[in-house]
């Protein structure tokens, strides 16, 4: 980690520890922790990390922002930090200034498409948009006859059918019906929806990796406290081996996600190598969320299945994050096609490219 990463991460971790302690917010039935947390994050400039100074943001590097998302995953932060960061990043691609307040991205799935009419209005439906219900603005990627455009729209102009993902966070259907944007500009040459989806996928991968780190941590701690058959359950070889496998899944998720983040942060163009990194991260982290989260629950037994215990804050969010910006099976099909299209003898050179 570079020194600037450490400063951003330390700032964020202090805020999370003070205002988003998992046990404290888990006991809070009316979500009164959300507003103070968002305010503290905003005052520290974190939601607009990826927006340059002249567009209203704090101008942190991509690497800093990725490290921040990993830290947010370690606390299973349930405010639209990642979404606002991605929205600010998308707007900045077209040099559109970011407004204050919560934002999210439309569309949030590779299968949905927003269209741009000849008269400059936006239409279309996007499913599974995280935190659309509470966001003030949406950053939209739209397609018109002249190619892709990036737009900022007022959330009040959209029709929103509220929903919840398996982690109990908002995941809503957004319908745009000839919505006039607050601002709209052409996307940079060559910018495609795939790039936005892979960027979102890497963000989710880092969050999943962070959540798995915490699941490993609390599972190890619990196994060293819980006594059964007159000894700590951590002394049973079957439990030890399960936890070793959880460590493996956590490690794989961390390695895949941070590798992809590093690749994107240092990329000069969007090529097959970046595609491999980002798609692999989403696929492997989603697999780890299932396997690793399952072990964490197994180690905890019934207590981990209660709303009172914090484990579900991590395990269910990690499972929910699999769905955003393309699921692992979607990306596996796309990556498989890319590999097949390049041909058998070009597989190893791709894998060994960095």
């Amino acid at each position, binding site marked *: 980690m570079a020194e600037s990463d450490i400063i951003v991460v330390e700032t964020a971790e202090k805020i999370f520890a003070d205002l988003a302690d998992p046990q404290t917010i888990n006991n809070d039935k009316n979500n009164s922790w959300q507003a103070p947390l968002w305010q503290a994050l905003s005052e520290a400039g974190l939601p607009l990390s990826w927006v340059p100074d002249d567009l209203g943001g704090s101008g942190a590097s991509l690497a800093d922002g990725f490290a921040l998302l990993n830290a947010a995953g370690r606390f299973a932060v349930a405010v639209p930090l990642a979404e606002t960061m991605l929205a600010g990043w998308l707007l900045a691609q077209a040099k559109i200034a970011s407004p204050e307040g919560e934002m999210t991205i439309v569309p949030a799935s590779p299968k949905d498409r927003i269209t741009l009419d000849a008269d400059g209005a936006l239409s279309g439906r996007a499913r599974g948009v995280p935190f659309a219900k509470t966001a003030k603005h949406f950053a939209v990627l739209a397609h018109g006859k002249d190619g892709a455009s990036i737009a900022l729209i007022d959330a009040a102009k959209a029709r929103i059918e509220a929903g919840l993902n398996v982690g109990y966070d908002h995941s809503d259907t957004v319908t745009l019906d000839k919505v006039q944007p607050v601002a709209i500009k052409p996307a940079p040459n060559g910018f495609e929806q795939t790039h936005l989806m892979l960027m979102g996928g890497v963000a989710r991968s880092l969050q999943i990796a962070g959540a798995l780190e915490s699941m490993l941590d609390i599972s190890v701690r619990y196994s060293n406290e819980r006594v059964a058959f007159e000894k700590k359950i951590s002394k049973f070889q079957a439990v030890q081996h399960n936890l070793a*496998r959880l460590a493996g899944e956590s490690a794989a998720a961390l390695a895949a996600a*941070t590798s992809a983040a590093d690749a994107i942060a240092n990329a000069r163009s969007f090529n097959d190598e970046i595609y491999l990194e980002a798609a692999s991260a989403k696929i492997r982290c989603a697999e780890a969320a299932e396997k690793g989260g399952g072990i964490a629950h197994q180690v905890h037994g019934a207590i981990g299945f209660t709303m009172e215990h914090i484990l579900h804050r991590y395990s269910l969010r990690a499972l929910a994050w699999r769905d955003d910006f393309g699921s692992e099976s979607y990306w596996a099909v796309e990556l*498989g096609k890319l590999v097949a299209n390049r041909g058998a003898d070009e597989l190893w050179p791709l894998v060994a490219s960095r």
Partner: protein
Amino acid sequence: MTAALRFDPIRLPEKCEQLRKEVRAFLAEEIAAGTFDPHKPNREDTDAPEFSRRVGAKGWLGMTWPKKYGGQERSFLERYVVTEEMRVANAPTRRFFVADRQSGPVLLKYAPEHIKMEILPRICRGEICFAIGMSEPNSGSDLFAAKTRATKTDGGYLINGTKIWTSSAHIADYMIAIFRTSPPTKENRRHGLTQFLVKMKQPGIKVNPIGQITGQYEFNEVVFTDHFIPDDHVLGEVDGAWKQATSELAYERSGPERFLETYYVLTELVRAVGPNPDTRSAEGIGRLVAQLHTMRRMSVSVAGMLEAGKEPVVEASIVKDIGTVWEQQLPNRVRDLAAFVEETASNRETLERQLDFAIKTAPKLTIQGGTTEVLRGIIARGLGLR
């Protein structure tokens, strides 16, 4: 907090990419010259002494070692590139692989100077082959239960007993083995074993081949009967082998050989499905490639951390655990997908022949060089569970 696992995202330096091109060019020449067939992992004759010498002449053996012993003083990341390219090409590395990865580093650390000067340059030239004498008929994973005795005599030791599952012993010039010099103590059951350099093909050593379920004969039983080893072939502390056995494990456990052993079936599957796969094949291939890429990035990361002087022991054990489980499952996942390959695929027979061999190879992958169970015990210790 549990000790945090680290997998720094290492980028291979520019010099590695240059080296990679050289290795690929060299291997392409060898293939063209008929030294080996990259599509045939199940070669009948896996010993290729002339190839070994040519690899040595390139400076690719002992490449991280000091120049005075014939090494190149190059980085672990460069060695990593050579190792992975050789593995992916199915190059016949049997003759030099153990010496380069494992035996050389042990000699560097524990052998007397005159032995280092005599043997290390020969490893670097690709002239000599090493075996590792650890397991015995009644001690495998439980290394410190070894019973083969080394009894002190004038000027050295007399060895009596049996090592088993010893890969390459039938072609090896040397073995690095552990023998019992004292009984274990009450306080320390690991006490009493000593590491020795054994010169093979000498009186008192009999090598008996053992057939494997793949049809190959690459491991052996090695019987010692009053075999004499001189004093200067003791490696490190007498009775203290247990202190020496652990430090190099990170190097052994995390290399590309720990997830690439059955890689060839994936390449062949991609060839068989062609450029426009159906959804099922595409998804299957995509997942396998994502898992492979992740394994490799973990493995490269450990190599980078080793190069930076860190000791990622737990991370290395994790790489071997999930890497070997992955390469073990790979042939069966490829088989699942191969069931849908068109009858007319031009490489169908090659793929089937490879699968036949890979499926038979798979069971050993989570046993050799430290079983999954042993690795998970090490990881559990690193997590603070024992």
